[in-house]
């Protein structure tokens, strides 16, 4: 049964320095509030896992929370580069960042394998590209046809973190709209945290909704607006202006540090 706790408690309880942590949400339902709490609590040496590290990981990487990044597309969608990520990679600032790079298809298959308690996933890809020389991937032969396919190791994060529309009082979590890899990220992880916009008495069925039963979620925490500047289907829209403004803020170390101080560190927990 999921415990319903404060975001501060949940992060303190679930995430430790050195953990591998997956904050998932594919353009939608990105758990920004949870990322900010990780920054406030000063987590270090994290292995951050995420298909699309965007602004939230740019912030965590810029604050030196991460030692390694496992990803498949690292950019500011519709805007351009992630400048904190680039500085970490290109100039090791504030700390060096190791990269383990995959394709979306590879990451998605690796999460699915993790959720299914398999040690690896099989897909058609990677072959013929330069990726295998720089990442964890292998070739595997079909025992029936002899065909060769790509294999990637399963993703099994220590902690899976997602943001959802709502949960009920027992901790059953409901999310809808673009659902990305959130179900897999929670099921593949040893521990999981779902931040939600609200707690309700009953989860009314919604078309296209994904339900994570309370017994597969470790903790649920209310975080109103917890996906901003990303969006929450049915609650609020994407703040596209923020993504554009982030480009300028994140280009400059001081502007970045000032923004974090003002909006994350002093921005009440």
């Amino acid at each position, binding site marked *: 049964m999921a415990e319903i706790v404060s975001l501060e408690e949940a992060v303190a309880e679930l995430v430790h320095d050195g953990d591998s942590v997956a904050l998932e949400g594919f353009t939608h339902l990105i758990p920004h509030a949870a990322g900010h709490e990780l920054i406030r609590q000063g987590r270090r040496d994290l292995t951050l896992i995420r298909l699309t590290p965007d602004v939230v990981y740019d912030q965590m990487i810029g604050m030196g929370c991460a030692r390694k990044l496992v990803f498949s597309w690292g950019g500011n969608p519709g805007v351009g580069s992630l400048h904190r990520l680039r500085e970490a990679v290109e100039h090791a600032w504030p700390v060096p960042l190791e990269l383990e790079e995959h394709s979306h*298809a590879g990451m998605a*298959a690796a999460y699915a394998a993790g959720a299914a308690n398999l040690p690896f996933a099989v897909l058609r*890809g990677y072959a013929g590209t330069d990726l295998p020389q720089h990442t964890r991937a292998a070739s595997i032969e079909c025992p029936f046809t002899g065909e060769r396919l790509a294999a990637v190791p399963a993703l099994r994060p220590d902690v899976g973190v997602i943001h959802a529309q709502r949960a009920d009082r027992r901790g059953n979590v409901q999310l809808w*709209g*673009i659902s990305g890899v959130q179900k*897999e990220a929670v099921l593949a992880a040893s521990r999981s945290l779902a931040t939600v916009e609200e707690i309700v008495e009953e989860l009314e069925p919604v078309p296209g909704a994904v339900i994570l039963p309370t017994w597969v979620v470790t903790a649920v925490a209310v975080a109103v607006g917890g996906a901003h500047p990303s969006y929450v289907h049915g609650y609020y829209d994407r703040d596209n202006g923020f993504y554009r403004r982030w480009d300028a803020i994140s280009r400059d170390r001081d502007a970045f540090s000032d923004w974090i101080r003002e909006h994350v560190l002093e921005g009440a927990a």
Partner: protein
Amino acid sequence: MSDWTAEEMMAIAAARRLRDGAVCFVGIGLPSKAANLARATHAPGCVLIYESGTIGAKPLNLPLSIGDGELAETADTVVSVPEIFSYWLQGGRIDVGFLGAAQIDRYANLNSTVIGGYDHPRVRLPGGGGAPEIAASCKETLVILKQSPRTFVERLDFRTSVGFGDGPGSRAALGFTGGGVSAVITDLGELEPDPDTCELRLARIHAGVAVEDVIAATGWRLAVVPDLEVSAPPTDAELEALRSLKTAEEREPAG
């Protein structure tokens, strides 16, 4: 409005390549713009699939990200990201993949990973995302990018996605089910692979562009097809449709 920019010509030429009813796996940016232009003009029945899992999206506004809410609201169905890549893309159901890139070589292999060395890159690009498997599994792939010696290179800094690999036979040897790149649409013209050598050749040139300019904008010795065509200039209808493609914000700017 018979005046147009090279970028407009590029988007229109790309849109023309999509036949009505085609199932199209669309990357964000130029590919999405061209695909939505096709939907707004000659291909209203074109099925748009975005890697966020939205199948049959019919956005009224041009999406800013691969996962805009409007894509989900207008889709025939929304599936998980693992499913869109396994059952739908790898499943071999996609007619046309639509990609951009930072670099392309003569065999239409693409780089969207790094400029410079991988470990100490001069520029760290976003990375492959969905592109490698889109290039591997779609029945055909269209590439759209502006042409210059910096983008059309003799040697990629990193091979992110496979066009024709090292030439004839490469795709089959890699076990790829898709047909590979059928055309590269640029601001100067359109390149197509030589059926025998798989090498990209200039097949069509945009009105008002000189062949020398295209050759000068290519980092390898660009071959030109004997019967070089000139792309039909944009029609007023095409230009009007293109210029009325706007993001939700462009329609009603936020405060």
